[in-house]
């Protein structure tokens, strides 16, 4: 299931890319800026400020669930009934042919820029593997570069299967300490680290992404331990991106009836990001970038 297809993505790998967001994720990062991609099922978006209280949504709702009750099955009846665009369905099953043809629309841009597709989420590797492999094979046939944006928290055989069709793995390291990882993301990071080591040994092209979250991991200790992890395990990578936290995703929580758990986080200052970057370089890491 897919939540969004975002064209002109210029921060998800080389060149101009189309990013496809898959729905469903095993992690629950408190800073998540795509909360609509956490749940594996379709969901209803509700824009409260657009609602004029005309009740036409309730009139068509077969489940008495127009306003986020447990009963809502996200059937979408109310979306077309609303005259004010206050409702949207998030999550759509898209056939492989349709998805490929949508992706191919931007082929001229990939060609000019060395770009392609980035499959992201949610966690793309936790989706239906048959679907994913077919999709990737189809894109491979068309000569489209495919990047996989992953949190790494999946059985390794899933990763292994996509290697032949993957140009670059955008691999997140959120925290190195196991307990901290559990505290902020809801899961242990043991599997994530093991998978990274295995992936590196198979000579995959890896692009390390470090979300820097003000109040959680925006400190030197964190980058020191990341450096230790990468060097100690001889992980080979082509780039390290430090991605500063931003709260632009927070407004989306309310749309799907969630409460934002990340109010305590802040965006690290530019100069602090620079310091972290410099520190990594000092520690002998190469190709470190902010963004």
């Amino acid at each position: 299931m897919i939540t969004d297809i975002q064209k002109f993505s210029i921060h998800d790998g080389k060149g101009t890319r189309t990013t496809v967001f898959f729905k469903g994720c095993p992690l629950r990062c408190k800073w998540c800026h795509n909360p609509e991609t956490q749940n594996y099922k379709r969901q209803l978006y509700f824009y409260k400020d657009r609602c004029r209280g005309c009740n036409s949504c309730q009139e068509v709702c077969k489940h008495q669930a127009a306003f986020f009750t447990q009963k809502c099955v996200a059937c979408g009846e109310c979306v077309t009934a609303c005259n004010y665009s206050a409702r949207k369905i998030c999550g759509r099953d898209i056939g492989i042919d349709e998805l490929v043809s949508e992706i191919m629309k931007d082929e001229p841009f990939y060609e000019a820029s060395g770009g392609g597709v980035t499959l992201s989420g949610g966690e793309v590797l936790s989706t239906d593997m048959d679907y994913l492999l077919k999709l990737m094979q189809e894109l491979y046939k068309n000569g489209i570069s495919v990047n996989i944006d992953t949190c790494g928290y999946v059985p390794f055989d899933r990763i292994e299967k996509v290697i032949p069709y993957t140009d670059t793995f955008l691999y997140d390291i959120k925290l190195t300490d196991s307990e901290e990882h559990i505290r902020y993301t809801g899961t242990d990071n043991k599997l994530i680290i093991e998978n990274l080591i295995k992936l590196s040994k198979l000579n995959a092209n890896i692009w390390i992404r470090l979300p820097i979250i003000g109040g959680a991991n925006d400190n030197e200790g964190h980058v020191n331990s990341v450096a230790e992890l990468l060097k100690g395990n001889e992980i080979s990578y082509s780039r390290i991106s430090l991605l500063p936290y931003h709260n632009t995703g927070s407004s989306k929580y309310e749309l799907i009836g969630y409460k934002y758990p990340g109010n305590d986080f802040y965006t690290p200052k530019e100069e602090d990001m620079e310091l972290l970057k410099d520190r990594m370089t000092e520690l002998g890491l190469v190709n470190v970038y902010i963004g």
Partner: protein
Amino acid sequence: MGERGMNERVRKLRKQSVEAGAIIDMERAKLITETYKKMYGKVSTPELRALCLKNYFSGKTLYIGEGELIVGEKGSQPLAAPTFPELCCHSIADLNLLNERELINFCVKEKDFEFQENEIIPYWGKRCIRNKILSHMTKEWKECYEAGIFTEFMEQRGPGHTVGSGNLYKKGFLDYKEEIKHELEKLDYINDKDALDKEAELKAMDIACDAIMILAKRYSEYARELALKETNPERKEELLCIANNCEEVPARPPKTYWQAIQMYWFIHLGVTSEINPWDAFSPGRLDQHLIGFYRHDIKEGILDENKAKELLECFWIKFNNQPSPPKVGTTLKESSTYTDFVNINTGGITPDGKDGVNEVSYLILDVMDEMKLLQPSSNVQISKKTPLRFLKRACEISRKGWGQPAFYNTEAIIQELLNAGKSINDARLGGTSGCVETGAFGNESYILTGYFNIPKILEITLFNGYDHYTGKQIGLSLGYGYDFDTYEELFDAFCKQIDYFLDIKIRGNQVIEKIYSEDMPVPFLSVITNDCIKKGKDYNAGGARYNTSYIQGVGIGTITDCLAAIKCNVYDNRKFSMKELMNALEQDYEGCDYIHNLVCNHSPKYGNDDDRADDIMRAVFEHYMNAVNGRKNIKGGTYRINMLPTTCHVYFGEVMIASANGRHAHKPVSEGISPDKGADTNGPTAVVKSCSKMDHLSTGGTLLNQKFTPGVVAGEEGLMGMANLIRTYFNMDGHHIQFNVIDRKTLIDAQNHPEEYKDLIVRVAGYSDHFRNLSKSLQDEIIERTEQTL
């Protein structure tokens, strides 16, 4: 590399230019009226026109500002705008309006009101071209004009719309005089029935040459006079150099970089003082014209990079000192700006097909970046051979958010010119001017004749030829919207109405062109336009090698979305009836939320790479193109289309009721070939894909505005993203793209506190303007133009 940034001299001159208010200058009106009174009926019309220029240049007030290196003003001082009563004689009410209006204001002195009333109006009131034109227009034409079906460019300003070639920098006016003499001697009075007309034109050209040389000589003497009085030895030396330059050019070809710029500037004054031509005049492929002088002077040790940049900056300020001639009425609405549309082309390729980027190209980019002036508009031509470094530097300036430089596709320009019948040589020397118009520089007269309101034609079609704005039946009676049983029937009726209105427009154009060719020859412009001397024929009468008349289509985004919404909801899915829709349009969607929601949010829209909409765009575009392209004008050339709006999309929206895409009554229609605002929700690549489905190469230019918030194009990735977007659009034959990189919050704040944003420049259409000088509705429109925040 030398030090960056403007030096003290440039800073002062720039400040003066930016802060001075525009004023009306009556000197030209006075002097040409004098000439008409004395000579009218005694000499031929071309000679009379040339004598006017000569009298003006012999008698006008000279101006050399403190610190100036390039000299000459069109009026008596910077920002002084001469009037052209022979074309458009302002009434006292017009002058009051110019003097009092808040936007695009021109200060009128008390004594000038009197002068206008006592001297100018009595002589010109009835005989000006504007009167003559309007008296020759049909009832149908006038009704369409009043209804806002189309506009008319030549009603207050002369045709011009052209650009100089490299010859400007290679020939002096003494050389031109020789050529003219030679042609006069060759005239065959026995066998050539036009010999007498040619004689008159050639004699007029000769007088025009004298006129410009007289002006330069007077400047030379004046500079010498100032030098004598000057106590500062450095300035004294500069004034003497200026005096020498003006002695040399434009009589003889320039020898140095400095003289080459001064040469152009005199020619600019000649063209724009002779008449008030649209788009003023432009120096063409400036980097290529200057590079020879630049390299020579550097080698000789008489120029360095800093000096070269300083001279360019002084040159830039001269352009900014010339507000466009004062406009009123509809002409003001279609082009509501001080900008006179000088457009400088940088980059592209050389005549022998090599990459044209050189040292001066990079200097020009630096000048653009530092000067941030309304005028001149600066653009870059990007060819497949353009180095990435140049493209990236241009993107870097463009993403600062004030709309310059605009990006043009060299290969598309060349192909457009070839498709229009130009030789490969002439095509490679060509470029774009005005907003986005393609032309063979130095060889072509390519006149914009007026905008054409495509979305309004659908409105007229739906209501059986009736116009709500004027309350008149102005179109054909082909039935009401609900009489058409299929989408095809509706579209067919729409096409018939387009043809009908175009016929009315073109008939008017032919008459107007005829009037200009006979009553308003431009001997000076003819001297410098290739083939006019050889043919003994005026620029306005078909003297140029190529003669094109453009009719500019406006609102392709809006019309596409309207037809797509109708096809989808009325015909294909039968969500509501045509009668219900027509009622909603007349009610401005009041109480019609159901229909409004469907047309706004659940219908295909142009700008999303969605063929359901884009196929309709193509169908409309192709019909419009086939209805115009190839029709003959009276100058031996043909009509062609281009797709640009200036500010006319705001005016065209004002004269319309609500439209079927959900647009409310009197709101602007879409501009250029950009999607309607808010319609493009799939990001810039989808916009560019949709736009590229149009056949750009069969047009004379298209205009695409792409707005970004700064974050989108920040950093190295952002820069590369921009560069790739441009390259890809151009690979797909896109003609032009320009960027506004400003966030919405800034614009809203600027609207509320205009005094704090005096410097804020935004890209409007084919030019940039001060945000504070835009009307509220145009400001709103720019704010609402989709911000691509992906």
